[in-house]
């Protein structure tokens, strides 16, 4: 089933590999860093909606009807997409290369 025991010796070998330690540290650090950026952007927005909703109604120019809330909202959506792009780019290059090396060395 799913719980095939991963070979205990293999576990120790991989764990002892400094590249594995590097992969775990780099990846989880980067993943949490990007998650925090997304969470901060989103909850900053939610808190503005909750506490000072009027501020999002300010106009982008004196003679415009468009509120700054509209470009801000669209920018948050775009930011979410860009953040996923940044992660995928770095993972495809750096992290996958490290994983490949680890697999190679533990064969």
């Amino acid at each position: 089933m799913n719980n095939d025991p991963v070979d205990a010796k293999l576990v120790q070998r991989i764990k002892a590999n400094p590249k594995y330690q590097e992969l775990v540290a780099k990846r989880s650090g980067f993943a949490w860093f990007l998650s925090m950026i997304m969470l901060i952007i989103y909850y900053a927005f939610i808190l503005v909606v909750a506490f000072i909703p009027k501020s999002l109604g300010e106009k982008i120019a004196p003679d415009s009807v468009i509120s700054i809330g509209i470009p801000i909202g669209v920018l948050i959506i775009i930011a979410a997409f860009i953040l996923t792009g940044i992660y995928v780019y770095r993972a495809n290059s750096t992290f996958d290369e490290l994983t490949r090396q680890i697999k190679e060395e533990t064969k």
Partner: protein
Amino acid sequence: MSRLWSFLLALAVGAWHPAAWAADAAKPESALNITAIAMFFVFVAVTLGITYWAASHTKTTKDFYAAGGGITGFQNGLAIAGDYMSAASFLGISAMVFAKGYDGLIYSIGFLVGWPVILFLMAEQLRNLGRYTFADIVSFRLSRVPIRTLSAMGTLFTVILYLIAQMVGAGQLIRTLFGLPYEYAVVTVGALMILYVAFGGMIATTWVQIIKAVLLLTGATFIALSALNHTHFDLELFFRTALESIKSSSLADHKKAVADSRDIFAPGGLVSDPVSAISLGLALMFGTAGLPHILMRFFTVPNAKEARKSVFYATGFIGYFYILTFIIGFGAVMMVAPNPQYMDAAKGTLMGGNNMAAIHLAHAAGGDLFLGFISAVAFATILAVVSGLTLAGASAVSHDLFANAMRGGKVDERTEMRVSKFSALAIGVIAIYLGIQFEKQNVAFMVGLAFAIAASANFPILFLSIHWKNLTTRGALIGGTLGLVTTVVMVVLSKTVWVDVLGNKTALFPYKDPAIFSMTLAFLGCWIFSKLDNSPQAAAERALFEAQEIRCESGIGAAGASQH
């Protein structure tokens, strides 16, 4: 197989029998239905063809649950978008923008921002640790029987609630669009989804999602472009015209906005107090990461790399789609609201309800042909989403409850497949039955409740089992159950159910969204009771974390794609 085809034929003939149409024959739209029906039949014919093809390629449980693990990242990204962009979000969010203005965008953003977090903290881990259901991941270390049972409960609660909401929405939408009686519509949707899932499994479901996603994105792009073209792509003029239009609108929400001189381009009353705002934000963001039919999609790709690519594409498609719904909502304010043809002035709503904003805009912008196309797309959208849900529910029953919890994982593939097919049939029948029972009920709360349960029961145990070494079976059971029970109780006691559905005077629980409380309780429960757990079993579970982490990070030992 042939018996099923003749059943479907009988159903189709019955559904389109003239008598079935009599009730709505006098409707003004009835002349336009021809396009919609023709396009709908083309969609059904194509998808049934795919199902027939998929059925011949569905030989193993891996094919059935995970499409053999052979879907590419791009395809899966489209399919995830297809699963996520329900008719509720297409019609519901554009309708919310139409009626309330900026508030609709707050929901869209909440629905989207969960995706990056899923990518960073869960997507690859899901792929490397799981096979068919998210319970696979949680039970990597934890005790099989109780954890599978709890996860299956969380899945079934989420799936059934979501299904009822979709079924009722489908019945009402199809009645309005096609003039087909409510019960016929629900039965047609139910029968088709059973066929897709029971015969075509994940392969058919994936392709139905992909086709639907392409159709929906194309249709929504055309509506949005036509609306923008109305002001020659001058955004300033676009919003200015919308602002002028609400003054002559007979929509109750618009009249109120004009009377209160409320700015429709700023947050309104929808998210009123800080607790509700944060609670809603939590449910939207983390609910996505606990939806079983979405999580299942990560097992259809061959490796972690494709899993992460699928989230990248999905986020792009979904984000683009939400920007379109925002344009469509204000496009409808501009082109639909001032036109009495689309308004039910007596009720202060749109003809057929406010959810029809996008549909009416399609007609205003592109005439009968385009209305027909968009109606068929809306129907296809519903079909695709309910199929994904049914497959997730069936997998929870056959893979988690039957094969693992009851039979200890010692079941041959054929038996497990047979059980999953019957489960799909059973879930379909239950969904049809409940869909008909709930026709007159207000089901708007159900999607919210499904998200809240996903965020408070499924997400905490899944997330902690991946990232927190100390999680034990006892902690997960207590925390997950706490999350599930408190969510349901709080929603039942809140205004949405206690007052709006059950007809009581005042709500016993003051907030609409329970997530801030129920999610916190679930995490606290998992944390405290895992920490207090000093049993030998807990020690063994903690010891397994190392092996889990290595598979999680490196993919060594993870299930690959099957060879065909």
